[in-house]
């Protein structure tokens, strides 16, 4: 499974478990409008760390927090510098 599709699957499962209404998942969707709250994002990042071994938010001190879903996915698609 590609990084993209595992992220999208994880988002859908977490939203379902947390009973959140999810907006259509397009690359330009602003994360703040996605329907996920910060707990959902924390769960998502933790799950992706378990699945991929990576936590791009903690890999360096200078993380530019993603605004859109596309930017979020890009953080995981790009290997750490």
């Amino acid at each position, binding site marked *: 499974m590609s990084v993209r599709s595992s992220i999208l699957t994880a988002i859908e499962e977490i939203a379902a*478990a*947390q009973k959140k209404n999810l907006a259509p998942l397009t690359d330009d969707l602003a994360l703040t409008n996605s329907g996920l709250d*910060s*707990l959902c*994002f*924390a*769960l998502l*990042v*933790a*799950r992706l760390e*378990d699945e991929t071994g990576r*936590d791009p*938010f*903690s890999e360096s001190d200078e*993380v530019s927090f993603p605004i859109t879903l596309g930017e979020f996915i890009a953080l995981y698609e790009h290997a750490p510098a």
Partner: protein
Amino acid sequence: MNMPPPEVTLRGILAQAGDLSASMLHGAGRSVPLEAAARSTGFERREDFRDCSVLIAADDQLTTALILIELDGIARRVVLCPPGLTEEHLGSIIRQAEIDTIICGNDPAECSKHGTARVISYGEPNRSASLATEPARETEWILTTSGTTGAPKLVTHTLLGLVGAIRPTRAGARPVAWATFYDIRRYGGLQIFLRAMVDGSSMILSHADEPLDTHLQRLARCSVTHISGTPSHWRRVLMSPKRSLITPEYVRLSGEIADQALLNALKEAFAPAGVSHAYASTEAGVAFNVVDGLEGFPVSFVSQSRGADVEMKVVDGSLRIRSDRTARGYIGIPDQFHDSDGFVETGDMVEQRGSRYHFVGRRGGIINVGGLKVHPEQVESIINTHPAVRMSRVSARKSPITGALVQAEIVLDREASAGAAAIEAEISALCRAKLPPHQVPSRVTIVDQLAVTSGGKLVRRNG
């Protein structure tokens, strides 16, 4: 120095306990009749210890018990050295408590390394000695606090305060025989040892190196009737195939939060035994005992405690206790645990639900999930209601988004039959149904076992 009445020494208590002839102190390797323990001495001359500051560093609990009986009322101070101390901590205790005499175990050379204190070994308790006729003085009993990462703190008690909560045990069909999974060199275990001494009854001592199954067999052989331990101890007992060997009349829990699932499991496993949970700490002493089989305790314990032996109040969500049984203080550290009204701040957080207070965790143990508080113990109490779960530990997992997330490790009952993945999913669903979202573990992991400290408490990374 006030002279206490002579009966408030350990030998005085034993002299008043009545017929000791059927009672024994059972160690892991040997047993001593209580009558002999009350009378005999393993020292050349007990008077050599008068007004001394004595560190009891015996290898085993039985020897420690004998030395306590010998020296209470004679020494100025006895320090109970817990097992497994590092050399550095031992040195720190010797300095802080101004130890002039060390009673060592099998290796006197080991004890001689520490400065100028004289080192003495304890012999077989067979040299005859007089009964409790020596003039008695008040002896300070010093306990070390467990669970901290730094050097142990030394907590001062007196025998009068230590036995303050003890009422004689009512015997059932069998003669009373007390046991505790605790070590008697710690507060929880010492309470049970002193209970047995007040009763003049037998006592079965634990041993750190003894496997649980062997220990349960020994308890059965010694006809144990009353047993005390932490919830973690008891969960291990429930997991042991040898648990059916023991038929206690009384099961007591203290030292950690007793949740309803465990109380129910113990009632079922050991029916018709009485199951009770007590609240006590090294600093605050014994506060109360809950005998109705329900978790938590009635609000009336607090609201009606004014002027009682043990007074309690709840300040900022945590329990405070004032009584004659609280420790006098720490050695060498300014009083940190009595507030301006003489109450001890326990750090144990309670929450009122209806007419009961429930313990929800330690003040320092809170997990902060995006600004929302989670008490690990509260989540554990939900997880532990799942029939396949015997024990659980909830801890923090770092999160770059919310600071922390909750995660859980669980030990399954040996009879659990469902697959691991199914149980993990059931527990997640159970937590989602019972807890607010931020308290639900982000990850549930099945483990073979969870470490328990030498004090019988679940090892928590944040202390």
